[in-house]
């Protein structure tokens, strides 16, 4: 094997922890919104099916929140354990949003506790619904705050570096750096999209298994409508993210597109492989599309990789990450829009098998798109941990034994993942919808 290098192991460990955490974080941001919607519709239409939806989603949600909380605690501590030099510098400039994030958690945790245990404690149902609002706000706010930190790493702002010392610090400018608007909008809207698709996938598989209860159809209808809205939003914001990159991190965009020479009327490259001489083969080209993605006009000039020194370039593998994310994004938008259209036209049956199968596939695919998006964003930032100021290798710990810690955490996440899945399955199997509808006297 290769020689022990704390930098490599710290990177892998960070990627593993974040890659695992972000699954639960995404669900954690998105699902409260759907719970709130379902309960609201249930109250307004006086339809107990929707209230039961909210109730059952919330019950599963607590389990994923638990894993989200503990893995989030892990990443929070690991940032200091693995990147002490980076945190020492970053702590001076960007600790405000991290600190604010803990308040958002706090707020969310308190109201989640209350919400779960007060389903039947209020005389007016709407009072119980009010309790989910702080949960949704808290979850979205924590996603927002942590994303500003990541934005800061991409476009550091709000300070001066003089002889290696940071001065002239402006915490708000650091938080609202140029990357913040597109990044936070894209992260939040993709979280809503993904959560909607995961819940839709559950409803779809129930229908496919022959459970034809109207409860599942209502669930599917609600989640697919939300998904359609956020699929379009995510794609539009993604386009803005591309324009952001063209202006502030052109090397990242160029790497994602294997765009070596600066040129106008640049085509977008899909898939393909790269030869030793950096020639693109077997790729599909969409003429002008890169110029449009970068600047909005077909004739615009897009900066190529040639303009950057070799040692500042990100790994070119990010091209695939970008393609997979965008591909899945198009796919999700397509099927959710088809579903919504088919529902409008009463003659058509939106619950046909092929469509249900694609919806089912959409759940895991959406999560894959989230992972690909983050991998693109993080690896596309390399070799920098703080673009232009600190290289990743300079930020890392010098401790021995990071490798051992890596194995320990991989084991932990495996155990957590397996337990989480088992618990969720047993929970819903032992109490099927049909049974619960009867028990609660809904029918």
């Amino acid at each position: 094997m290769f020689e022990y290098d704390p930098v490599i192991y710290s990177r892998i460990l960070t990627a593993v922890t974040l890659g695992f955490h972000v699954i639960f974080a995404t669900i954690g941001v998105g699902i409260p919104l759907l719970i709130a919607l379902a309960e609201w519709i249930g109250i307004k239409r006086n339809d107990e099916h929707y209230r039961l939806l909210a109730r059952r989603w919330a019950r599963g949600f607590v389990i994923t929140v638990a894993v989200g909380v503990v893995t989030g605690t892990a990443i929070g501590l690991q940032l200091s354990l693995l990147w002490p030099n980076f945190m020492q510098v970053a702590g001076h400039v960007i600790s405000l949003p991290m600190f604010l994030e803990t308040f958002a958690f706090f707020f969310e945790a308190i109201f989640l506790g209350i919400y779960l245990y007060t389903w039947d404690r209020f005389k007016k149902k709407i009072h119980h619904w009010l309790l989910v609002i702080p949960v949704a706000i808290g979850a979205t706010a924590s996603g927002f705050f942590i994303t500003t930190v990541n934005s800061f790493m991409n476009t550091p702002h709000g300070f001066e570096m003089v002889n290696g010392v940071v001065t002239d610090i402006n915490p708000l400018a650091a938080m609202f750096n140029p990357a913040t608007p597109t990044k936070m909008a894209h992260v939040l809207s993709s979280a809503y999209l993904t959560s909607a698709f995961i819940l839709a996938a559950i409803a779809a598989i129930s229908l496919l298994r022959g459970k034809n209860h109207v409860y599942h159809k209502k669930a599917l209808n609600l989640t697919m409508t939300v998904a359609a809205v956020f699929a379009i939003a995510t794609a539009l914001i993604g386009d803005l993210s591309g324009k952001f990159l063209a202006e502030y991190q052109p090397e990242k965009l160029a790497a994602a597109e294997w765009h070596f020479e600066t040129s106008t009327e640049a085509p977008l490259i899909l898939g393909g492989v790269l030869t030793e001489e950096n020639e693109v083969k077997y790729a599909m080209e969409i003429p002008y599309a890169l110029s449009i993605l970068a600047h909005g006009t077909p004739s615009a000039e897009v900066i190529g990789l040639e303009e950057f020194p070799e040692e500042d370039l990100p790994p070119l593998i990010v091209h695939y990450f970008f393609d997979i994310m965008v591909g899945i994004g198009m796919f999700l938008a397509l099927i959710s829009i088809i579903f919504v259209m088919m529902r409008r036209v009463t003659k058509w049956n939106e619950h046909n098998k092929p469509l249900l199968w694609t919806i089912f596939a959409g759940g895991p695919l959406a999560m894959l798109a989230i992972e690909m998006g983050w991998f693109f964003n993080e690896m596309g930032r390399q070799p920098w941990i703080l673009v232009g100021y600190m290289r990743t290798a300079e930020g890392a710990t010098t401790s021995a034994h990071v490798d051992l810690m890596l194995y320990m955490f991989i084991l932990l996440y495996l155990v957590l993942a397996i337990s989480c899945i088992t618990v969720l399955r047993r929970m819903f199997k032992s109490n099927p919808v049909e049974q619960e509808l009867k028990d609660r006297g809904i029918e």
Partner: protein
Amino acid sequence: MDYELIGITVLWTFLYGYLIVASIDFGAGFFSYYSTITGREHVISKVINRYLSPVWEVTNVFLVFFFIGIVGFFPSTAFYYGTALLIPGSIAIVLLAIRGSYYAFHHYGFKGNRFYQFLYGATGLLIPASLSVVLTISEGGFITVVNEQVHMNYGALFTSFYSWTVVVLAIVSVLYISACFLTFYAYKARDMNAFAVLRGYALFWSFPTILASVLVFFSLNQHNPTHFASMVDLSWLFSLSFLFFLGAVYLIWKQKRLGLAFIFVMLQFATAFFGYGASHLPYLLFPYLTIYDGFTNEAMAIALIIAFIAGLLLLIPSLYLLMRLFLFDNKYVQGRK
């Protein structure tokens, strides 16, 4: 007060909050498991679960608040402690992760899984032990800094008498604080069987707690005489702590005013904890790092303090609501809701 002092006071207060709420939680997990294996589960587990269910996640946030806050106010701590604590820190993370998730799995998933409950109970004692190591290390003597490189001497840590007394104190305090609180809660719930058992635990753990405190006090004299000397200067706080201890034990013994008894317990730990903290100053890591040289810049300090005040304005009413619904609502506590 200068910003440095405000910063450390805020953080220390949150750590104190964590000490209390987490102890209740950790101890409860242990008692709940212990009662299962001794066949008395039905007696006390109801009281324990009723209290714990809505609040477990809030407990964790106190800790997150502390370690995010300390890097915010004192970024240099990330450098010193971050490098030194890789192994104990990672072990603590794993324990916290197991505990948090298995509580949820056991409680919301399927009840009565003994193994999950074991994990939950055992980690409750191991976490305080592993977290207490940070306080031990802060006394100096275990970390050396050579050429800007931080080294941690595990041999010294594991063979130090002082570090073991701190571990013992952490564990027995957890059991003592938790038992005292649950005694009060069981009494409010009018669950007299549980009350009798828990009161027994509270009294049982009171003596070891005070014994361990005295041991820590004197072994610190050997380990870090400078700190010990400043603790002696603040000895009135520690005497006060002892009086609160006596008051609490007396009330529990006499089965009178149990709410007040628990307040005494909180004050006992508050006086000791703040006494310890105040005498530790100005050092964050003896003798390398003080609150003055590790402090963030003024702009960030002001931003953090404003954020903190705004945050409190949001949190205090919410916490009040939580307590009203689950802690002081007699109908809920007694299981009639």
